[in-house]
Structures are given as C-alpha cells and as structure tokens.
C-alpha cells in the first residue's frame, strides 16, 4: 500500500478507532478526493494549526453544516467539470443530531457525495455525553448510571433507515474490524451517481473505556453478537448481509466496556441485559445473520 492519505502525528488517543477508519476510507477513495468534516474529534485531532494530517484537500466549517458545505463543493466541482470524489467524514453527533437538517437537505437534493459516519455512539469530543446514536443502557456523562438510572433510557436512532427513507441509493453499515468489507463498500459507494451513506462502528477508548489493545476485538464482537449487523442496501433493497459464523453472547461484548459495567453490578439490571439480548436476537432474525 502507498503512503496513507492521513499522515501520522495527529492527536487521536491510542486505541481510538477513528484514525484507522479514516485511513481505510481514504485508502479506498484515493487521492482524487476532497473531504469535508464537521467539528468533532476528527477535526481537532488532525488539524491543530499550522499542522494538518490531511494529504487530500479538506474543509471544516461548523458542527452542523458539513452536508451543506459539501453540497457547495460538489456543485462547484461539477460546474468546473471536475470528477473528484466528495466525501464527508463526521462523527455521530453531527450525523445523527445537530446536522440532521443539513444531511436531509443533501440527501434529498441528490448530490454525488459519500457520507461516512464514524460512529462512536456519543459526544466524545466534549467528554462522552449522550447522542442520538448512544445505545440503550450505555452510561454516558449525561445519561449516567445511578441509583435511579440504568444508563441511556432510549435505543439508538436508526440513521441508515433515515437515509433509506430519503431514497439514498447506497446505504451500508461497516466496522473498523472488517477493513476489506469497509474498503469495498467505500469503493462501491463512490461509483453511485448520487448520495451514499456508510455508518462505521468505531469504538472510542475514553467513552467506552476498554483496554487499548482490544479495540479491534471489541468492534468484531459488536458484529458477532448481532448488535452491529453489517448490511448493504442498493436502491432501497437489502443486497448484502455479513453472516456470523459463530455468534457470541452479548455479555462478551458488553463486559469489555466500562460504559456497561453497571449492568453487571446490579441485579436489577438483569432485565436490561435481557432487553439487549433481545435486540441482538431480533437483528439475527431480521437479517438472517446466522445460517
């Protein structure tokens, strides 16, 4: 492989899935790519002025407008007759929550833009506050577990379904633990003549609290437990499902993470564990994950 398009020396934490994810995305997209990023960990760790890790042109405007800014880039490139990939790379805070209006507008207008969400399931840049992507029962600093709380009371927002509802022609989920699959999906998305959306499970060491060396294992367990199915939709049809050879119990995934430790301390959390298990089973049945 040639030199990575995301140079080392950035300030991301050791054990963070984000830079690995970005490198895989850029490897697949190649140098003829312009990246637009919202405010977030990615932006602050890769661009402390006057330094930058970006070896492709990169634009950051605000937290909630990456899709609108990228739309402007895309129409201008078309106008200038340039065939350059436009890729948005943002976290779940901007993708699921604050940027939703702008994302909806970009999807609806049909720009040829690939939107990659590195999904670490909370507002990590500001200190692990809950986002619309935070899974059920996860402890965050704004959904802490406590005597009256069992963590985040609501399930994760179904962002791929929102993209599909806009008629986005290519929608996929991916994982940092499955690099071949992720690269293939990025390449496929960039062939689409319209918007595409890929949501990548990207564990956050400070937010999820796990041992740095287990990041990839953790991301793999999310898939193998059925909690993060790897899916692929073309023109609204489910065309690809990554099968799970040996399904793992959800506890194996949850136990490695500090954000779920309250579930194993309190007997009254047993029904929470049961609900998470039911979610995994529902995914397995819905997507036929296990042969």
């Amino acid at each position: 492989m040639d030199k990575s398009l995301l140079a080392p020396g950035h300030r991301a934490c050791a054990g963070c899935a984000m830079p690995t994810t970005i490198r895989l995305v850029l490897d697949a997209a190649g140098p003829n790519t312009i990246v637009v990023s919202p405010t977030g960990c990615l932006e602050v760790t890769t661009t402390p002025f006057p330094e930058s890790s970006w070896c492709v042109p990169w634009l950051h405007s605000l937290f909630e407008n990456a899709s609108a800014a990228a739309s402007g880039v895309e129409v201008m490139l078309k106008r200038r007759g340039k065939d350059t990939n436009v890729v948005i790379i943002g976290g779940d805070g901007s993708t699921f929550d604050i940027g939703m209006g702008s994302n909806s507008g970009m999807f609806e207008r049909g720009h040829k833009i690939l939107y990659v969400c590195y999904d670490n399931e909370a507002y990590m840049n500001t200190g692990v506050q809950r986002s619309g992507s935070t899974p059920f029962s996860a402890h965050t600093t704004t959904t802490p577990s406590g005597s009256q709380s069992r963590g985040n009371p609501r399930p994760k927002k179904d962002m791929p379904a929102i993209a599909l509802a806009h008629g986005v022609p290519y929608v996929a989920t991916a994982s940092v633990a499955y690099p071949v699959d992720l690269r293939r999906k990025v390449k496929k998305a960039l062939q689409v003549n319209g918007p595409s959306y890929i949501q990548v499970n990207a564990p956050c060491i400070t937010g999820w609290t796990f041992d740095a060396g287990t990041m990839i294992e953790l991301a793999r367990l999310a898939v193998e437990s059925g909690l993060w199915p790897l899916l692929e939709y073309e023109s609204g049809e489910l065309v690809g499902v990554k099968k799970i050879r040996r399904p793992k119990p959800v506890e194996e995934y949850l136990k490695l993470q500090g954000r779920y430790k309250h579930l194993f301390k309190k007997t009254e959390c047993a029904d929470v564990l049961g609900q998470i298990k039911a979610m995994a089973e529902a995914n397995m049945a819905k997507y036929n994950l296990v042969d």
Partner: protein
Amino acid sequence: MSNNTANMKVVEGSYAVAHAVMCCRPDVISAYPITPQTHIVENLSQMVADGELDSEFLTVDSEFSALSVLVGACAAGGRGYSSTTSQGLALMYEVLYNVSGLRMPLVMNVANRAMGAPLNIWNDQQDAIGARDVGWIQIYAENVQESVDATLQAYKIAEDAQIRTPVMVCMDGFVLTHVYEPVELLDKQKAREFLPDYQPADILDPAHPKTFGAFADPSTYTEFRYQQFEAQIKALAKIEQVAREFEDSFGRYYGGLLDGYFLDDAEVVIVTLGSVIGTIKDAIDAMRSEGKKVGLLKVRSYRPFPVQALRKALKDASVIAVIEKDVAIGGEAGLVTDLKAAFYNSSIRVPIIGFTAGLGGRDITVKDIRKIVAKAEAARKGIESEFEFLNLRTEIL
C-alpha cells in the same frame, strides 16, 4: 449622482437587485425564502430557469444551510451569493462568523426586517445591526438604485486580495424590496468590465491539497482575528476607491463611506442609515426654506465604521441627532453608541442624542424629523434625554 434617464426602467426593488446579482455572475446561489427577501431569490430562480443567468441555484433546508453551501462553493473556487433577512440572518449567525473567519468574499443582500418576538415582518434594521460584530462589511442603501449599485461594488470590495471579507448590502425590507421606482439597471458588459471573474486565492484541489478550517489554539487565534480587523481597516479606503471607480464606469456616486446633504454650514446634523434618508431630505428641504441650518450625514459603511471620516464630516456641527431603526436593549442603540465612541477621544465636543424610530415598520414622517430637530436644538443648551424611543404610544403601555 446622475442618471441616464434614457435607460431608466420602473421595476420592483427586488427585481432590480436580482438583475444586479445576475450582472455579478455568481457561480452558486443558495437561499431560503423569507419575507421580504423572497422576490429577490424568486427573480434569480427565474433568471436561471430562463437561461438568462448561468448559476447553480440550490434550494436548501434553512438559511443556515444556504450560507453553509456557499462556504463549500467558495472553498471550491466559486463566487457565491445569498440573500436573507431577520430570523433568517439570525439563524445564519454561526455561519456569518465562519465565512468571515475563513476570509470568504461572499455577498449577501439583507432585506432588513424586525426581529421577533413579537413576530413582525416589517422593516427595521435590528437584524443587521445586531450582526455588526460578525466580521462582515455592512453597506446600507438609501434607495433601490443604491442597492443595485452597492451589490456590484460589494463583490469588488469583498474579492480584493487585500480585503477578502464578506459584504452585506443592507436594504430596507418592503420599503426598498417591494417598491417600484425608476432604476437604471446595470449594463451586463460594463458590469463584467468593472467586476472581472472571481480569482480565488486558495482552492480545494487534489493536485495541491490544502486544509481549510483548521483549529487555532491560544497561541495563534488572536492573529487570525487581528488580520480580519486589519482587512476591515483597509476596506475603508477600498470602499471609497470602488465607489469612485463605479462613478467612472457608471456615472453614479453616493459617497463611499459617508455622504452629506446640506452638511457644510449645518448646525443641527442628523446622522442615520438606510431608506429613511429620503424622508429626512424632504424635511431638510422644507426646513432649509425656513432658514434652519439642518443637514444630514448618511452612514453608508457601518462596518468598517469610518471613525476618522465621521470626525471630519461632523467637526463643525453644533448638535447631532442620530435616528436609527434598532435598539440595543439594556444599552442604547448601535449607531449612536458607536458615534459617541468615535468622538470621545477627539477634540470635538458636540452633544449627541439618539432616537430609536421606525421599529417593526412604523412610519417615520417629515413631522417626526421636525420633532427630532426641535429636540436637537433644545439639546444645544443642555441634554435632557440622551436616548429615547420616538413616538412611543404611552397609552398602550
């Protein structure tokens, strides 16, 4: 100012401005409809639909996205245009800072309108005055012709390599956007000669990858702000220069930063901005015929605020009355506060009184101007009220 009456047409203000925008040849237009800005962007959409204007017109989900689209378009090398007002401008607030901080030379017509609550769609200037510190140049137009001409001038100022600062061309909502009056529409070819194609300094280009919008820590942030500050100071001369170049090409001139009316021997000077100037000129004409030494100073450039030019223009005034359609609740109002600050460290000692008037579309009449002049004359002997709401309806309070 001179007009070639042969080329004059009676058109709606919004059409005239849209026509001016067409003559500026923006690559990308992005706007969200809001009264009273709508006719401007409807006209532009039609021009694009009819092939009269070769621009990409993006319909978006909000004003916030409208201006954000232009951030991307500008970074990719395009000339961008938007228009908004009031709540829309407020929704753009975060992007306004971003555009100026990224030194993007965008131009936007602001069809000035009151801010809610209570909801009010009529004209005042609270929206733009409230955004005076966002780093944009602000030019206020007196009439439709000035709105047209300032729009073309705005791109030339904004895109200058020494300036690279976005410009708001402020025109009073309804009063100027919806009025039909005789206007000389810009000649496309002359406009092209006056404003060449946009030459971006930096561009998103895979052959030369650059990072736009990095974050700056305390060791560099101040210097970014200082460079914007410095560019606005340089813009003082540039605005004047562009106004003169415009005069050479089009034969019209309204002052660059400021303009005076019966200023030379004026004892009472009214200082204001925007379309109320027409009414004030009528009032001054009447009072002059009665022998009253009343004059007017129009502030055309509110940002940058022309401190030196103001001191020079107002050095001989005996009393100054500021009339403005905004209020800084908890303080006074934008223009009067800035004007007083401009004089504090000068040798000029002149009483300055402020009036907030015309809020939410309330008329300002010739009678009102006479009332203000009478109060100003009284203030020469001692200020009774430094700042007041004109024509306050105390019976409904």
